[in-house]
């Protein structure tokens, strides 16, 4: 157990280290911070002063250490384009992305799991098979095509829902939320749906496969032999063991949702981190790009650690399996 956790922790630190080196190279070696901060008509003396202040005349290893030190203090540099601290820019954008991903995750689990369980329990019925065929369509639909089709139907043709933005938001402390206003909720529907559709299909397929696996096992046969009703067998015996992998997979799902949120944010001009990153790419705004890289790495490493922990806590058999698969 301890060896497994230490191994995962080492892996997490390794990923963060590798990405931080990449982010450092990107922000420090590729770009010229002095030229971008001072502009082209600065005096040589000013340049030299800034170079010293930014530690640019020191060796790369030391500069990397300064970079890590700044990172640990939450200092991610200054955006070239916005001329503001990157950390402030990110803090403004995080709520939009988190709310979008959270709603999409809730949708994908709340719809996907029941569909999958239904398809497994009634696997010989037409409707269940039709659902599974439909899930192939769900997996095959690119996120941005879904978004565009939704905009075409519900914004342009029917005029029911807004096609871009977050609507009105309410500020609570450092957090801005769209949950509390009617226009905020209306704006959320289509982005969350286009993000969720592929995931609903994936969750449904996964829950069906897991449920079918569990239904084949001995203890289910034994429960039936004891004369338990179908309902009791399915819900209090089978579903419980089906949920363990689904809960852990939903962590990975959250990762995918955040990745695809970049696409959805572009389609709906949703003011989240993904849109910030795309704009930064378009303007070659290196501090923002490298900060996004760093934040994404921390986020995904965090998710993976939590998922590994859940694995270890939820199912001791999986713990042993993961260990032997890795060695």
């Amino acid at each position, binding site marked *: 157990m301890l060896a497994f956790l230490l191994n995962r922790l080492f*892996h997490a630190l*390794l*990923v963060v280290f*590798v990405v931080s080196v990449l982010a450092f190279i*990107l922000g420090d070696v*590729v770009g010229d911070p002095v030229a971008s901060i001072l502009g082209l008509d600065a005096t040589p003396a000013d340049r030299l002063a800034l170079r010293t202040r930014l530690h640019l005349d020191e060796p790369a290893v030391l500069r990397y250490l300064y970079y890590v030190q700044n990172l640990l203090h939450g200092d991610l540099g200054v955006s070239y384009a916005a001329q503001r601290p990157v950390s402030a820019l990110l803090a403004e954008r995080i709520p939009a992305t988190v709310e979008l991903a959270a709603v999409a995750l809730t949708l994908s689990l709340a719809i996907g799991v029941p569909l999958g369980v239904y398809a497994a329990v009634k696997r010989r019925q037409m409707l269940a098979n039709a659902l599974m*065929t439909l899930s*192939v*369509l769900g*997996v*095959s*639909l*690119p*996120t*941005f*095509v879904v978004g*565009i*089709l939704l*905009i*075409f139907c519900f914004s*342009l043709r029917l005029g029911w829902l807004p*096609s871009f933005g977050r609507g009105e938001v309410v500020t609570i402390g450092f957090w801005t939320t769209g949950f509390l206003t009617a226009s905020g909720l209306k704006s959320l529907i289509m982005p969350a749906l286009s993000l969720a559709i592929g995931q609903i299909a994936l969750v449904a397929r996964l829950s069906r*496969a897991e449920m079918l696996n569990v239904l084949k096992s001995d203890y289910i046969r034994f429960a039936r032999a004891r004369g338990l009703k179908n309902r009791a067998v399915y819900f209090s015996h089978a579903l419980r063991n089906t949920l363990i992998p689904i809960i852990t997979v939903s962590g990975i799902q959250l*990762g*995918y949702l955040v*990745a*695809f949120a*970049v*696409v959805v944010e*572009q*389609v709906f001009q949703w003011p989240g981190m993904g849109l910030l990153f*795309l704009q930064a*790419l*378009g303007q*070659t705004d290196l501090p923002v*790009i490298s900060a996004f*890289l760093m934040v*994404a*790495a921390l986020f*995904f*490493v965090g998710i*993976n650690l939590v998922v590994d922990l859940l694995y270890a806590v939820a199912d001791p058999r999986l713990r042993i399996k993961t260990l032997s698969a890795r060695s």
Partner: protein
Amino acid sequence: MSAVVNSKARPWSLSSLWRNAFVRRLLRAPAAAVALAVLVLLVLSAVFAPWLAQTNPYDLASLDLLDSHLPPAFVAGGDPRYVLGTDSQGADLASLILYGLRSSLLVGVCAVSLSVTLGTIAGLASGYLGRWVDGVIMRIADIQFTFPAMLLALLIGGISQSLMSNAMRATLAMPIVILALGISHWPHFARLVRGAVLVERQKDYVAAARLVGRGPIFIMGMQLLPNVLNPIFVLATLDIAFAIMSEATLSFLGFGMPSTQPSLGTLIRIGYGYLFSGEWWVVIFPGLTLVLILVSINIFGDWLRDMLDPRLR
């Protein structure tokens, strides 16, 4: 002669399926048969696009601005010469889609070839050589697995394009997209091949080859590789759908194929700008084509996987 007999005796299930039951089984699964038919049709029309398309959308001289913004022929105001309508330059949308399909498929196939090659070499080395080679390769794969492949492709493609001048971007866009997609997906193949090699290397024929003095390169390439081809083939089929979808996503975001050599994703990005002025056809038709090809690859790939290797389920 003996070589022919030998190859027939080899229990390679893909070829034996093809000879014995492939067609029969395909006909028993109508969805897969239809998917394969659609796929073949789309691939053929992409390959023969220069002969099928009624106009060459890249030949600016043939474009007539008077024909621009025309809706599809079956809609009021449409022109029978342009079945699916025209874009803002007056190019025939059907021809644009045929050429776009060509770019999408080309990039998809190249990207998958790259990740298959990288992943197979890494998986063979990792599984057969073991020790530190295995440790290093699997650690790198693990690091990559931390990130969703799509995001990784976007990071590689987006950042490298963003660091380039516009002229460089125009010439290097396609190789960059292929590289970004290939690099982002090789670990899937490496893991698959490594797993299969770990099983195969226990077998007697590998020990026999080692006894007669065959080197590791020969054993990996000539003996292990043919025996792990099946799962690679299945994963590669499904992976083409992933590659095409990721390419379209990258292009839609503006970091994929350039507008001088548009793929379906590029067409959708350009068309999206006109959606709000009512020109729905320039974005809806390329989008539907993209969905059609992805759905048919996925249905056929799923069927192929169940057929060739039920363990992969």
